[in-house]
């Protein structure tokens, strides 16, 4: 059941990418900056929810890592857009990401204890996978400013690390 829902979430993200590509609507730098920043904000919110709910030491440490890393990357992103005088621009992809994340937050909010821990960590694996995929196949290739591209590439490596870290925590919960 959970797996079906996760796959649906991933499919939704890939659909988004392919829909945008089909229209030939390559995202612009201001849109890319907004999507990347939003993706970070979403993960920080999820981590803060986890920090409020979990009693599992490993899950707590993981959530703290997520807050720290995503805040660091987003700060760097804000500094960069300021320097480049780019105004991040709201768009369909970031709106859909935010909407899905709000639904997920509400869904996880109803769970407790080990059920919450498992759902949170499983979603972290799926979410980082989806974001990494979007970065790799869509955002990085579309970015035109070299500094923005660079930051996205560093972000990708950091988030790939999170994906593996989340997988380890997920395995430890079994």
């Amino acid at each position: 059941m959970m797996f079906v829902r996760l796959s649906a979430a991933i499919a939704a993200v890939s659909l988004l990418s392919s829909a945008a590509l089909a229209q030939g609507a390559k995202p612009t730098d201001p849109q890319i900056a907004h999507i990347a920043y939003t993706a970070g904000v979403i993960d920080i919110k999820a981590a803060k929810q986890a920090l409020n709910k979990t009693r599992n030491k490993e899950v707590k440490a993981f959530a703290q890592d997520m807050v720290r890393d995503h805040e660091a990357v987003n700060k760097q992103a804000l500094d960069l857009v300021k320097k480049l005088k780019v105004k991040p621009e709201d768009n369909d992809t970031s709106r859909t990401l935010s909407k899905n994340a709000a639904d997920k937050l509400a869904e996880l909010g109803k769970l407790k204890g080990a059920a919450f821990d498992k759902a949170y960590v499983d979603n972290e694996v799926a979410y980082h996978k989806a974001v990494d995929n979007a970065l790799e196949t869509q955002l990085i290739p579309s970015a035109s400013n070299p500094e923005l591209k660079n930051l996205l590439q560093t972000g990708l490596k950091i988030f790939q690390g999170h994906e593996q870290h989340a997988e380890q925590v997920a395995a430890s919960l079994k």
Partner: protein
Amino acid sequence: MTPRWILAALTALALVAQSISAQAATIQITMENLAILPAEASAKIGDTIEWINKDIVAHTATARNGDWDVMLPPNTTGTLVLKKAGTVDYYCRFHPNMKAVLKIEP
């Protein structure tokens, strides 16, 4: 006039200091863009490893065998004096995709 035994003692001390500094080296390993460079390094017991984290996020240098765990906040350098020989695989606890090997000779 300095007594001869003091001179002898000073000479001996200087010799000891020299031999220590000749033996112990400092080896620098960089963490940048989530990569550990060099990914394979060699050192001897008594040497100091200096991990330089150039990234905006914290990393760790964590031995898989549990021997050491060095915290490396963003843009800082962490050190470790090697005390045990062996080939140690280590990684970053926060980003397990960062992996490297340290060969420590006796």
